[in-house]
């Protein structure tokens, strides 16, 4: 057995937190984690937010983010304990032996400097290469990572390349100083699904070709299954399970891992469309003020009572704009929306109260969708008061009923949003929408900001509520797994147009148009070797490339 490149023993990490209105106190984030990483191998760290993945990743560089302290244990890199080494030694470690790729390339690159300057900075600064050599190396890496015009792309500024390309530039940045270990911190999470697959393939090739070892951090088990040799499952700062990728994916032992593997396995029987649709858009075309570009082009879709229409597409495809048009926030330039047989006025301000009430909305970021200065009781109570004039005892009872319905129960009425978890926040937002007794709820990416298991819970809740309340959903998402789980009919959007529309079974069965095929095939599957298979069989290049 070769000597491990990275050896972590009993790593403990703590932080000082400042809870609102209370004394600051010390908490443990990571409680003693052990693992080894051999040269050239890839270890996937997986877990939900708060599991300590990123913190462990950064500890491999002997670094703790603001307020985080590495309180105990050992981190051996190339045979020395880097936690004990001095500042100068740590400097030589970071950027030379260990490098880091962050989630948001757009936020990590300096917008005022050219890409090449930033890619070679560490390599030169660490004295590993001369400027000429480093530039040559960078061009080779650009080519290896499949970037267009590898010779010249370095002279562009970060805003002049796409998000997926920038993420690859960052990978080049990390690989340029010829490190022994690269920490990838959710490198594809912020990308569109069709772009993710290309970046993923590029990263995988680059890792293989350069023989570098990697820690690959992500919350998406299907993604990590494609790139890593071993996987470590983390939950709240402790290791749950460690094994080879094959073992974790195909034979998980722990209940938590099994739950992660089987996530998104909700079964939903498709309902047949009814005679009269609840909502119908006819020839909707829309553009934002001050632009000369149609964001939506001739959209014709229908939503049937008590059913779910899923609108799928990449960012920029116009999904959210469609929601804005339907709610009246953005009056369309042409076209008509009928709701329960009557025509909705294009502008929100002129709609009667009942139209507003029957059409509710749930947002992606539950954090910003609730006023931080209002209690849960006020947030849910306001629509009751506003639409139905409920007061006092009656209102209290109804609020509690709604809280029960979203499976939160007693004791939540007086809490502020900051005192809720991500999943609980989203549930409160659902309750606020339900309080209005709507016929249609527009769900705009409601699960994309949540951890997979929490998202699963929210989807199940939405499906149950649909059965009980007979409410229809317009479900906007970029995640096809979600669509498969809950939709009755599907509209696939691409650059402002609906390219495929119909009942779920029909949309999801061949023959596909090129775009739908690309979209469908890009959703990572919990299967080893999926990435290579898919790349080989593709008909169309990804759009956001």
């Amino acid at each position: 057995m070769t000597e491990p490149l990275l050896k972590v023993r009993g790593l403990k990490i703590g932080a000082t937190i400042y809870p609102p209105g209370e004394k600051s106190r010390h908490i443990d984030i990571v409680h003693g984690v052990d693992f080894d990483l051999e040269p050239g191998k890839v270890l996937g760290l997986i877990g939900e937010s708060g599991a300590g993945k990123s913190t462990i990743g950064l500890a491999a560089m002997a670094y703790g983010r603001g307020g985080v302290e590495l309180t105990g244990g050992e981190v051996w890199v190339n045979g020395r304990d880097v936690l004990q080494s001095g500042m100068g030694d740590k400097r030589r470690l970071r950027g030379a032996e260990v490098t880091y790729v962050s989630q948001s390339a757009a936020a990590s690159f300096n917008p005022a400097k050219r890409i090449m300057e930033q890619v070679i900075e560490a390599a030169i600064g660490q004295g590993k290469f001369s400027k000429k050599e480093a530039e040559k190396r960078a061009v080779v890496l650009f080519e290896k990572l499949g970037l267009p015009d590898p010779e010249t792309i370095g002279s562009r500024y970060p805003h002049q390349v796409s998000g997926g390309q920038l993420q690859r530039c960052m990978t080049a940045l990390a690989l340029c100083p010829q490190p022994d270990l690269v920490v990838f911190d959710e490198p594809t999470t912020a990308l569109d699904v069709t772009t993710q697959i290309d970046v993923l393939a590029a990263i995988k090739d680059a890792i293989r070709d350069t023989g570098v070892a990697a820690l690959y951090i992500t919350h998406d088990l299907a993604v990590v299954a494609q790139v890593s040799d071993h996987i470590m499952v983390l939950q709240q700062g402790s290791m749950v399970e460690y094994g080879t990728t094959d073992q974790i994916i195909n034979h998980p032992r722990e209940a938590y891992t099994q739950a992660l593997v089987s996530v998104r396995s909700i079964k939903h029987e498709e309902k047949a469309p009814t005679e009269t649709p609840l909502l119908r858009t006819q020839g909707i075309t829309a553009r934002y003020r001050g632009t000369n570009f149609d964001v939506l082009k001739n959209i014709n879709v229908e939503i049937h009572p008590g059913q779910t229409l899923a609108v799928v597409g990449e960012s920029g495809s116009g999904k959210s704009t469609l929601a804005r048009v339907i709610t009246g926030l953005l009056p369309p330039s042409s076209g008509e929306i009928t709701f329960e047989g009557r025509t909705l006025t294009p502008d929100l301000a002129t709609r009667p109260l009942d139209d507003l009430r029957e059409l509710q909305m749930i947002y992606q970021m539950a954090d910003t969708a609730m006023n931080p200065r209002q209690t849960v009781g006020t947030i849910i109570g306001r629509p009751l008061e506003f639409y139905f004039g409920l007061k006092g005892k009656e209102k209290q009872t109804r609020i509690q009923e709604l809280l029960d319905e979203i499976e939160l129960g007693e004791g939540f009425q007086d809490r502020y949003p900051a005192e809720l978890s991500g999943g609980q926040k989203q549930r409160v937002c659902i309750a606020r929408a339900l309080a209005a007794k709507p016929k249609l709820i527009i769900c705009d990416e409601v699960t994309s900001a949540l951890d997979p298991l929490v998202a699963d819970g929210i989807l199940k809740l939405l499906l149950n509520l649909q059965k009980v309340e007979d409410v229809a959903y317009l479900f906007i998402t970029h995640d096809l797994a979600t669509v498969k789980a809950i939709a009755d009919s599907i509209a696939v959007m691409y650059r402002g147009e609906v390219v495929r529309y119909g009942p779920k079974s029909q949309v999801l069965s061949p023959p596909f148009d090129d775009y739908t095929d690309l979209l469908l095939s890009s959703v990572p599957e919990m299967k080893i070797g999926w990435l290579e298979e898919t790349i080989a069989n593709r008909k169309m290049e990804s759009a956001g490339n």
Partner: protein
Amino acid sequence: MIRIPPAALVGLFFTTLFFFCAIFAPFIAPYGMAEVVGDVWEPSSSEFLLGTDSIGRDLLSRMIYGGRTTIFIATAATILSFVTGATLGFFAAVSGGWIDQALSRFIDLIMSIPSLIFALVVLSVMPTTILTLIVLMGLLDSTRVFRLARAVAVDITVMDYVEAARLRGEKIGWIIFRETLPNALSPLVAEMGLRFIFMVLFVSTLSFLGLGVQPPQADWGGIVKENKEGINYGIQAALYPAYAIAALCISINLVADWILSRTTSLKGGRG
């Protein structure tokens, strides 16, 4: 039990002291406001703690009554400027579009005229009463409050919860006072301390120039003016009101800082 940091405690103590003296001036002051009780510029003694002023009035009594005038004018003008400025600022931010443009450009126009010059021009044609002073200072300063309130509110009105309120069909009043205001409070409160200080300085400046509070009514700026000749003879009378202005400004600032740091850590988190 709230723990108050020492700096805030000092600020709180002096602020309370100043306001207490201002409110109960007639009961605290040893002599009447305009009562001539001794010789010109007598040094401090057990009879006249701070000595007497340029025409033989007790300086301590003048200071106490002067504080009452200065603090009253500054408080009233601050309240006026915040009510007007914040309401208009929020209204502009929430309405958006041409209403926002029209209001903002109008405010820019007023702000482009130096406020002291503006005040001098207005006061030279208007009767210089305390009411005129308050209204003038309040309205001039409301332009600053408007800018701040609008800037803060613009950030808040793009939040999803404001959009949710609009979709619900809420009227503008609810959006301003229930959704926006509570989230804009802490920067506004901190600004309020600062604006109050500027008001004190402003009214003192005007009085010093002879266009503010008119004699025999005492106010700190006026006392400096009345006694400024004494400085030539080494008489400190003009310095006491200056010390008072400085002390009030610093202590208010200390309190405002503390309030700002407390409100940001209130339940609900966001400042």
